[in-house]
């Protein structure tokens, strides 16, 4: 025990980078953020306590409702879609064929493209006048291809499409998960006469479920913070009918364009709550569906 408390000083010294950063750059800002979320704080004057006024304002703020529903729709569409596409691609890339490494690299390369560059590329691909996708659709006989980024009906779909381009990182995680599944399980299933779909359903998917859970949580958190891509693609025009105005963009605008720091902080805390609640829900729902193999 004496030895252990002797270690206290050493332990605190070694971990100092972390706890100093935690206190200065996380705990302090968090406390301050919570405080100013109850204040009127236009940055240039000191914060003025207004109680729950910021949170009360949220209830009547139409733009807040719009951004929250946009973000929810984006998360609700992109998370399941990404999951299904990623598992499908992982199965395809797990087939043992020549050139497997090359195919894997092709799927993965887009994920290292910076968001801003991806935004620029896809603004071109989806350009309604002379972008390749519009050209292709015209060639296939579609007279008036969608306006994509400029159309309230298609803008969200366009963003989901672009976010699918980044499916490579979950694919790599699923691939690693697939490699961990013991071959004996498949052999046993084959002996029992299970067809390929049944093997996928009863062996692959349950074995992969902890990885699915991890990926779903990461992508839910990511989807609720989506910022750089829509900011790049729709900054100059706020998006058709605000169809692509997302939560983080509204938060950013409140803080740094309207200088409503208090209101922005209230928005930030609501965002944190939403993320925590959703993560908790995913865990709850997954309890029956995730199978952990005894190590």
């Amino acid at each position, binding site marked *: 025990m004496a030895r252990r408390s002797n270690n206290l000083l050493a332990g605190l010294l070694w971990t100092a980078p972390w706890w100093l950063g935690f206190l200065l750059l996380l705990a302090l800002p968090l406390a301050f953020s919570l405080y100013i979320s109850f204040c009127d704080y236009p940055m240039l004057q000191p914060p003025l306590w207004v109680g729950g006024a910021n949170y009360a304002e949220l209830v009547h703020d139409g733009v807040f409702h719009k951004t929250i529903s946009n973000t929810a729709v984006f998360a609700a569409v992109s998370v399941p879609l990404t999951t299904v596409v990623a598992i499908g691609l992982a199965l395809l890339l797990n087939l043992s*064929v020549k050139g497997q490494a090359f195919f894997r690299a092709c*799927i993965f390369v887009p994920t290292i493209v910076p968001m801003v560059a991806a935004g620029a590329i896809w603004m071109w691909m989806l350009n309604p006048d002379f972008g390749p996708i519009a050209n292709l659709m015209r060639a296939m006989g579609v007279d008036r291809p969608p306006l994509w980024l400029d159309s309230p009906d298609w803008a969200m779909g366009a963003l989901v499409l672009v976010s699918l381009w980044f499916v490579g990182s979950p694919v790599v995680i699923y691939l690693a998960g697939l490699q961990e599944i013991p071959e004996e399980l498949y052999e046993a299933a084959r002996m029992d006469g299970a067809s390929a779909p049944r093997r996928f359903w009863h062996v692959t998917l349950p074995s992969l479920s902890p990885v699915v859970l991890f990926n779903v949580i990461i992508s839910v958190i990511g989807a609720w913070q989506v910022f750089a891509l829509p900011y790049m693609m729709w900054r100059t025009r706020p998006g058709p009918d605000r169809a692509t105005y997302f939560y983080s963009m509204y938060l950013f605008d409140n803080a740094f*364009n309207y200088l409503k720091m208090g209101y922005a902080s209230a928005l930030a805390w609501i965002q944190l709550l939403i993320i925590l609640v959703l993560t908790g829900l995913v865990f709850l729902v997954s309890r029956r569906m995730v199978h952990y193999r005894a190590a």
Partner: protein
Amino acid sequence: MKNQAPKLRGPSAIVSYAALSVVSLLFLVPLIWMACISFKPAREVGLPHILPKEPTLSPYAAVIGAGASASGVRVDAKGETERRETGAFNYALYARNTLIIVVLSLIGMILSSAIAAYGFARIDFPGRRAMFAVCLATMMIPFPVIMVPTYMIFRELGWIGTLMPLWAPAWFGSAFNIFLLRQFFMGIPRDLEESAMLDGCGRWSCFWRVILPLSTPALAVVALFHVLAVWNDLLGPLIYLSHQDQFTLSLGLQFLQSRSGDTPWNQLMAAATLMILPVVALFLIAQRSFIRGIATTGLKG
């Protein structure tokens, strides 16, 4: 035992090759298109053919910015809306700024994360478990929640409009990297250090001479992801930088795109190509570390 499906033969091999080729092409097409447009002269940009008929380097000349000095207009905290058109993209300058942030933050990130991770992995001190639990919990907190107060802190320090806020925080490490390195350090047999300590090696020199050299794979993963994150970051530069002389590549490209009027597509694509090339090169060099990094963070995270 690795699970390798049996080699495919016959029709199923053909079908899977076809599927793999189509999918791979779909993922690469946007990049190929970007590269092709970047070599097109302005009059060819709107034409449907993909390959430039008269390839030109002029879009690159316009954005590379070598020798040209960026003439910026000061912008206040209101930021984006007030920015005025101040000349095109300046790759040389923005790449330099981005590299400064990458290098300065990378050194701090690696050192601090490794030191703290060693503390959590090897020193048995009272409160260690609780502190590590807090460290893990902080990973859940999204940046926007602390964005405003963090901005205030840096404003008090007089750092707004400098590159400091973009690299200095890295010197406190990051919870995620500390976690990653701690897991790795835990896997290194203690005997190695103990025998070094018997030889009179202190903790500090053990860390430098035994632990760090054995951890290069994990350190490489941390470094790679850090470089990518800095290269990618738009929100940070958007908040803290106000002068075009300090723009990073991300902010510069966003700015180039946001300038009103019709965007010179070939220049935008040339700038995007130049921005992507270094990270793609990094990926090709360090492909194994990348894949392993994602796989392990994903599985053990």
